[in-house]
């Protein structure tokens, strides 16, 4: 590890902490439906959309109606993308003349982008036309992110409102988030990326005669416009197969820093917006503190392991950091940091190949996802997932010390705890169930590239990534088969919507409750004790559930690695 590496990590966190309050204030304005300076420009678009679709944005919805509208909207987008991918060969803006996608691949990809996972069973530059990238995928990058933040708003309202039946209007939330936050930021952000060397053209590819006289064809396309929202919306689906490791997606240390910042910035801001919504900003800072501590712990382990390098290669006389699967311009520090950021935040973009990380360096991204993507988390999904853990934490604390389970002025009762457990149980059920299935079937075992414990890690990583809606991969796994496309597609759908529905039910149930003022019997939910309790609950739940799986995969791999054993 170098001083420069640590400076990068600390500067990164410092910039985000400085952005938390202003971004939180902006998000809170959208949460409240207040007018922003951008309304002068985009207000007419918003109103025209509502009028055309017959939506009354002032009409509030109960949690069930909110859930139904959200689901129908997402299914409509899913169908649209499936159709575009299947019919790709017949549609315009296809300079390389790619054919349509197979049914299982189109299904997998459409689910993948609808659920904000952006798992890539396809290689972008060799499979998708420019139209598919823009019209099929970029729209999801915006709208799955907007859906996530809208759902977080509904959850905030559950805590903030008293004795009401409603949690907001889904279309009003999603439209405002898209028009007054995601779209304007992305326009500026994408222009900066272009200036730094990210292509933005409708041409497909260009032929090059290299200095040595060989022929090389470079894939091009409208990369920057997709790259911007891919990061800001914690989507992670790259234009190219190699994602943000590809020099056209991420040409320099500067763009790399921007990309990492844009993965986290809305997640940081949402904790501040939550504090504002419940009328006590310290509540937001307490959540952020727990998240940042978990994040720094993960970063330390990953950076330490990647900088220390691979003993198997050291034995061959190649000392130094683990550079297999890493770009020189990023090195060990920025690669490890990016890996932790992208898996903490449910983004799934990668600037290095996680499959080639050292065993424990690869364990950190895997474990981040298994914790439920609540360390900052995906936009919206991170904070509502985290609030589920907060509900469990006050419940457990209540059992331990006999305090009334309350959180931010709401009494937590059996119904909320049951629903929270139901939502959290989705993760281990699907991850472990599907991993087990793939580990004993011929179709599943045909997937892994690597042998030994690492091969098992590839399978475990795939299903973890799908259920957690992350989208990064131990990419050696051959996943573009009907078996994996189908199973991973189901895992992504369940991992998204089977958590959202109980979460919205909690929001509805909380909104209907009376407020309870904090008394001497309430557990304070702002100090270090609370932060420690939150971290403990998250680690114990994640640890107990997944430790056996991790022991079979990365931990066994680590023990082999330090002995210099290969497979």
């Amino acid at each position, binding site marked *: 590890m170098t001083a420069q590496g640590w400076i990068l990590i600390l500067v990164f966190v410092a910039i985000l902490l400085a952005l938390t309050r202003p971004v939180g204030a902006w998000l809170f304005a959208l949460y409240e439906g207040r007018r922003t300076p951008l309304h002068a420009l985009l207000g007419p678009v918003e109103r025209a959309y509502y009028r055309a*679709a*017959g*939506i009354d944005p002032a009409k509030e919805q109960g949690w069930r109606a909110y859930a139904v*509208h959200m689901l*129908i*909207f997402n299914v409509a987008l899913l169908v*649209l993308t499936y159709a575009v991918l299947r019919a790709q060969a017949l549609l315009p803006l296809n300079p390389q003349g790619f054919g349509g996608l197979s049914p299982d691949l189109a299904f997998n990809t459409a689910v993948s982008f609808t659920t904000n996972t952006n798992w890539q069973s396809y*290689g972008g530059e060799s499979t998708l036309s420019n139209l598919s990238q*823009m*019209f*099929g995928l970029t729209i999801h990058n*915006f709208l799955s992110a907007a859906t996530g933040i809208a759902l977080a708003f509904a959850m905030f309202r559950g805590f903030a409102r008293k004795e009401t039946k409603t949690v907001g209007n889904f*279309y009003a939330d999603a439209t405002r988030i898209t028009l007054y936050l995601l*779209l304007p930021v992305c326009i500026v952000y994408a*222009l900066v990326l*272009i200036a730094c*060397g990210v*292509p933005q*053209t409708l041409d497909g590819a*260009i032929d*090059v005669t*290299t*200095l*040595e006289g060989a022929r090389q064809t*470079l*894939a091009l396309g*409208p990369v*920057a*416009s*997709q790259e911007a929202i891919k990061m800001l919306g914690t989507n992670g689906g790259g234009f*190219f197969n*190699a994602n943000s*490791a*590809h*020099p056209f997606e991420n040409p320099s*240390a*500067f763009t790399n820093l921007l990309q990492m910042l844009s993965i986290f910035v809305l997640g940081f801001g949402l904790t501040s917006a939550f504090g504002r919504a419940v009328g006590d900003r310290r509540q937001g800072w307490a959540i952020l503190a727990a998240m940042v501590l978990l994040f720094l712990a993960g970063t330390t382990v990953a950076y330490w392991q990647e900088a220390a390098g691979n003993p198997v290669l050291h034995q*061959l*006389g190649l000392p*130094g950091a*683990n550079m*297999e*699967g890493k770009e*020189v*311009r990023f090195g060990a520090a*920025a*690669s490890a940091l990016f890996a932790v950021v992208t898996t903490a935040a449910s983004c799934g973009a990668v600037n290095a*190949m996680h499959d*080639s990380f050292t065993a424990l360096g*690869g364990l950190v991204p895997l474990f981040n996802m298994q914790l439920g993507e609540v360390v900052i988390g995906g936009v919206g999904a991170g904070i509502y997932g985290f609030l589920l853990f907060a509900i469990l934490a006050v419940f457990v604390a209540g059992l331990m010390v006999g305090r009334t389970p309350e959180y931010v002025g709401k009494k937590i009762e059996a119904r909320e705890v049951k629903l929270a457990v139901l939502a959290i149980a989705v993760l281990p059920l699907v991850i472990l169930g599907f991993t087990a299935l793939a580990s004993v079937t011929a179709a599943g075992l045909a997937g892994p590239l*690597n*042998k030994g*414990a*690492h091969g098992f*890690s590839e399978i475990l990583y795939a299903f973890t990534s799908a259920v957690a809606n992350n989208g990064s991969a131990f*990419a050696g796994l051959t996943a573009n088969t009907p078996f994996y496309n189908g199973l991973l597609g189901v895992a992504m759908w369940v991992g998204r919507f089977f958590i959202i529905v109980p979460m919205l039910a909690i929001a509805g149930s909380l909104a209907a409750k009376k407020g309870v003022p904090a008394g001497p019997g309430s557990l304070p939910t702002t100090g270090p004790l609370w932060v420690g309790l939150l971290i403990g609950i998250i680690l114990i739940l994640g640890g107990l559930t997944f430790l056996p799986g991790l022991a079979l995969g990365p931990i066994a791999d680590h023990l*082999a*690695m330090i002995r210099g054993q*290969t*497979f």
Partner: protein
Amino acid sequence: MGKTLTAALRSAIVMALLFALLLGLIYPLVLTGFGQMLFPAQANGSLVVEQGRVIGSTVVGQAFVSERYFRSRPSAAGKGYDGLASSGSNLGPTSAALAERVRADLASYRTSPGSLVPPDLVTASASGLDPDLSPEAAFYQVPRIARVRSLPEPRVRALVEANVRRPLLGEPHVNLLALNRALDRLGPAG
């Protein structure tokens, strides 16, 4: 219920189509327009043109395998530096195939049994299109380049030094295409 559901479906479909139009067509096309107008070189791939021929991109790496050039890192993109198939090797830390590949590459580079090869020189990058080498990996090749091109070593070393970039908050690196073009311009000894 039937009526509300129909209305909800209609809202969903109209909103999906309107947003698809805005985010899937207008947004990327407007950006393409602005990008092409404001930053045409970058927007089209930062291409390097020499005597009317496109010889590469300043951003993306290309294969250098000859003795006469500073060699590029191993690449898992297609058959090597394939611009249509970016990829890493995805070999894990305990992969026998990885150990074997590194062993062979080390043997081809090592000038003396004790010399330490910089790690990036014999490891495949994440994209398979890494445009750079670490300064150490470039300096390591100086004696061979000097010998093959009959140039004094200090001159070649100075050339590498002049091409090292040290970005703020980033890793020092050398762009191989820039370095090798400069090497070609260096001309014969003298």
